[in-house]
């Protein structure tokens, strides 16, 4: 009965302006730190932080991929049809991850060996798709690249801190160099899977306490929790509401 022509109004999202570079950097590093505040990318945070070089390596690899993918997606944002938005972003991200994978295999074989499948799993890291959808699809290429870099560095800082704590307390070393006095028995639990949960849990409690409120949840993107997102697509091909 009611056709498109009869709808008395249209729902249009107001056009947002890109944030200033300083704001982007602060958001990526501190205010919206992907691991600590937005609780995105939990898989590598728990899996790879068993040793400091691993945390640092994966963080930097992710940062590189994030920067490049944000840049390219932003360049193509007006070209990609809305209906195939998400698959296209993922394929672009996968391309860059493959490149980084082979660069690491060639120039940092030790790192590649210790990170294992977590390098190709950067594709499935929530952070990349979240930033692509929330930033790169809306703003220009250089802001997007900066956002990617900032988020990536923020991610790396978080990973590196957690990895440092886990390695020092769990193995007595840092980057393989013994750091603790000889009478200190390392808590091996910290290097094992339960220790990952424990370390991350302690970090989250500290963050909760410092921010005096809920961390994550409200801001975590649809890719992690549909009930708590502002941008939940109704289907993978669905357009924005």
């Amino acid at each position: 009965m009611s056709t498109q022509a009869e709808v008395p109004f249209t729902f249009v999202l107001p056009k947002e302006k890109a944030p200033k570079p300083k704001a982007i950097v602060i958001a990526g590093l501190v205010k919206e730190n992907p691991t600590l505040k937005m609780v995105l990318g939990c898989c590598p945070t728990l899996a790879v932080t068993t040793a400091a070089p691993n945390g640092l390596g994966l963080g930097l690899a992710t940062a590189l991929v994030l920067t490049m993918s944000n840049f390219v997606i932003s360049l193509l944002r007006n070209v990609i049809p809305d209906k195939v938005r998400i698959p296209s972003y993922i394929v672009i991200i996968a391309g860059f991850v493959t490149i980084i994978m082979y660069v690491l295999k060639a120039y940092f074989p030790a790192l590649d060996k210790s990170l294992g499948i977590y390098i190709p799993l950067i594709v499935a890291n929530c952070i990349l798709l979240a930033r692509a959808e929330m930033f790169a699809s809306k703003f220009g290429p250089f802001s997007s690249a900066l956002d990617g870099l900032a988020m990536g560095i923020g991610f790396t800082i978080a990973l590196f801190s957690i990895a440092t704590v886990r390695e020092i307390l769990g193995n007595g070393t840092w980057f393989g160099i013994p750091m603790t006095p000889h009478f200190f028995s390392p808590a091996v639990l910290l290097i094992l899977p339960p220790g990952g949960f424990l370390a991350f849990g302690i970090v989250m409690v500290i963050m909760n306490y410092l921010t005096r409120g809920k961390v994550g949840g409200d801001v975590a993107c649809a890719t992690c929790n549909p009930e708590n997102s502002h941008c939940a697509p109704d289907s993978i091909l669905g357009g924005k509401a």
Partner: protein
Amino acid sequence: MNNIFLHFAIPALILGGLGLVLGLILAYSAKAFAVKVDERIKFVRSVLPGANCGACGQAGCEAFAEAAVEGKVKPSGCPVGGESVAKNVAAILGVELGDSVSTVARVACGGTIAVSRLKYSYDGIKSCAAAGALHNGPKACAFGCLGFGDCVSACPFDAIVIENGVARIVEEKCRSCEACVAACPKKLISMVPRGKNFVVACKSTQKGPATKKACDVGCIGCSKCVKVCPHDAITVVNNLARIDPALCQNCGECVKVCPTDAIHEIGGVLRVESKAV
């Protein structure tokens, strides 16, 4: 030369081919398995707040949009969106908004800690459902509000508070989503038309002496209110008085004669606050 060209062409072709085949399958399936979707659902969905809170009783905004287009819910069914959303939805569907009587939730229990007795001391999961599973809860009155706040947790609008061990609805914040009605294991909360200010705050069907033993402010079924009501709005069934909101004219005569102060005036002050010694 040939080799280098092939070196690049083959992967591109294979990946491209894979993508093409998958894309074609998806396109075909989208057409072949297409579900006819009413155009209007998209528009209704776009005017909804998008909070997916479930206050409307549907499973999210998309579900509400579908139900609205199918006519299963009224356009005014979204409490969070309020009037503006209701108007927009009605406009899209081309229907009249209609007169919707605004309702509000009411808790039918006045048994605060001061006036009611306990039958045992409870130390367990702080949930009305859990406590209520143990012989109807720690209160001597088997019907009373346990005050652990299952309703408070259920309310998306923070419209319920626990005062002195009994739940109380903050009427200004209540948006009639009826989540509390479902959450209360004792079924003490019901929806009443807004503006009817008198309610019997008790659900106990026990005989008078038994009710009085458990709680000072329970309804003992003495029927004094029935005799005094000029509009015949009150009936007593099973030792419990009930005010019919359709007939009640807010005159307040019943409150004056009730011997146990079981009838509350919402927004008024309880005549006697505590009978505790």
